[in-house]
């Protein structure tokens, strides 16, 4: 089956990096079997979802200032539909983990993630969130936020430039466009065990 290519205005498909990853993701989705006749409806819903991703205003350190800069006048992520930054996790679609996550913060971050409604996405911003960054050897830093949350997109940098943040967010849009909303494949964690 041919892989549909997520379309982003003004950037051709070939100009993106990590296309193999998307292709692999689509193959996995198809292997699990989706409801084919809902394809068109999927496309429509994903078009809407990918262009109105609402981020949670969550920042622990330096990367948070760059996140604010992306929201401000020059870089303006409203152009891509990200402008509705929510202060409550209940209303947010994605969490940008911008900054170092420490041992004390980790349970709080997990709780924020758990409070978000499905489908939800995680972007790890900056070296600290990806691997611990310059603080890898510290006694109080979580070496990579993927130890506690499933991460969708990694944006390297210390801190990443606003252009890099935008690129990462567009990568997430592409990912959202490929997903099957009706296939039940959005959940990345196991179903919580029901009490017997």
């Amino acid at each position, binding site marked *: 089956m041919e892989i549909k290519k997520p379309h982003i205005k003004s950037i051709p498909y070939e100009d993106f990096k990590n296309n193999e990853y998307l292709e692999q993701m689509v193959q996995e989705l198809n292997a699990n079997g989706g409801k084919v006749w809902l394809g068109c409806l999927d496309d429509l819903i994903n078009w809407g979802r990918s262009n109105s991703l609402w981020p949670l205003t969550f920042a622990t350190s330096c990367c948070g200032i760059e996140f604010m800069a992306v929201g401000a006048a020059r870089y303006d992520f409203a152009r891509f539909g990200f402008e509705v930054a929510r202060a409550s996790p209940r209303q947010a679609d994605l969490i940008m983990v911008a900054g170092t996550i420490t041992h004390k913060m980790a349970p709080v971050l997990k*709780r924020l993630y758990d409070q978000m409604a499905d489908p939800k996405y995680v972007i790890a911003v900056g070296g600290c969130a990806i691997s611990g960054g310059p603080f890898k050897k510290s006694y109080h830093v979580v070496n990579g936020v993927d130890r506690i949350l499933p991460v969708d997109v990694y944006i390297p940098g210390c801190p990443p430039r606003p252009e890099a943040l935008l690129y990462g967010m567009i990568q997430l849009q592409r990912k959202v466009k490929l997903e099957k909303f009706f296939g039940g494949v959005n959940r990345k964690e196991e179903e919580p065990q029901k009490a017997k």
Partner: protein
Amino acid sequence: MNEIIDIPVEQLHAEMKKLHDERHFDFLRSLTGMDWQEEGLGVVYHLENTLTGENTVVRTHSANRENPEIPTVCDIWKAAEFNEREAFDFYGIRFTNHPDLRRLYLRDDWVGHPLRKDYDMSEETNPLRMTNEEPVDTTARLEVLRDGSVIEKREVIFEDNEYIINIGPQHPATHGVLRFRVSLEGEIIQKLDVHCGYIHRGIEKMCESLTYPQTLALTDRLDYLGAHQNRHALCMCIEKAMGVEVSERVQYIRTIMDELQRIDSHLLFFSCLCMDLGALTAFFYGFRDREKILDIFEETTGGRLIQNYNTIGGVQTDIAPSFVQKVKEFIAYLRPTLREYHEVFTGNIIAEQRLKGVGVLSREDAISFGATGGTGRAAGWACDVRKRHPYGVYDKVEFNEVLFTEGDSYARYMVRMKEIEESLRIIEQLIDNIPEGEYQQKMKPIIRIPEGSYYSAVEGSRGEFGVFIESKGDKYPYRMKFRSTGLPLVSCMETLTRGAKIADLIAIGGTVDYVVPDIDR
């Protein structure tokens, strides 16, 4: 500055009281916990006389490594309260008679005290705990009985019938991951309890296993809105210890960069304060103009927010060819823009009513807490390090130290807005006269500092940023302490907000202008 007094633990409290009352050492610049291995654990106090500018250093130590007990000085200087909690957290030093001896940064179930030299760094001792922390409403107080023995008493912070709400750590208006627990009576704040440590990265411990040039990288990440200034302080301290004189050109470049950074930080302060009070337009204005400074930084240093520019003995690269012209253009641009800011926000009736007369800090409290920077100057305390202990080329330029006497939120706001103008003035006097010379001195491949202890400070964007190094002559520091600008500011939040309305907590926090990664380090 080099006078060091050793005081035995038994006489510490009486001697400190004498220093405070008789010799007028009323400003506790910094309080540092120490681990001198065989000699035991101890504390180093940096004191300053605010009348004469005289400095002194006091040391004390306790040989008992199991239960080191040192009397508290927080009844003499209010600044000691949080700093002693930090020393308790890092070293396990128990301060007798301290009213609130809890851990400041780490979780209550943390095992061991990380800055001790014999601390076990392995994952097994302190694995990643994913359980939520239970709020505890009591605290410990160590009381000395008449026969000299010490007993632990529990003190109540919040009674059962008090109405407590929790703010943070994830709250858009706490400027980072700071957490408050606030006891309310209606809308009025009765009591406020600060919880830090959600971004504690253990930078001071990390520095002990890094060589001096490596430690530089971490300072930029302390207070990222004062990256240049922080790094300037550390470079200055290392240069002072090694006896290196940097060239005139470097001094000029560093000073100009420091001032640009200050403007950058104050513009961000303006943006965020306005946003917190609901004026979103002003946020866009502030960020629009801040980007212009970041462009100037980027051209010379390659970095926007974190520049990694100062090095030991100089700066990373020479200034970009268009630097001088761009800075001049920026100055010409910002002056009229500032007037626009005042039209948009300062004169606004809502802004005035939210800020005037709210969160008043007296001059005595500011000194006692060591709340330097804009907060101290708004209360009438002339605490500018650029004037007290000039460094760089600040002694060659003319500028006013902006002082207000009201001590309220509005004064704190105005101090910063006026300081932008003073910074522009400083840059204007320097930008045309940058002398020729080397931008980087030739240094030895391995940098060692002679044995001893060194302290130097700069005026950061939000107060005195100090670096204290104790060296044993190695290429690694034995102890490196950063006097955070933010810790004294959060420690006075309780005094500032008591009796204020809950909505004003945000405005007060905004005008005090702390940066949380700088508090937690």
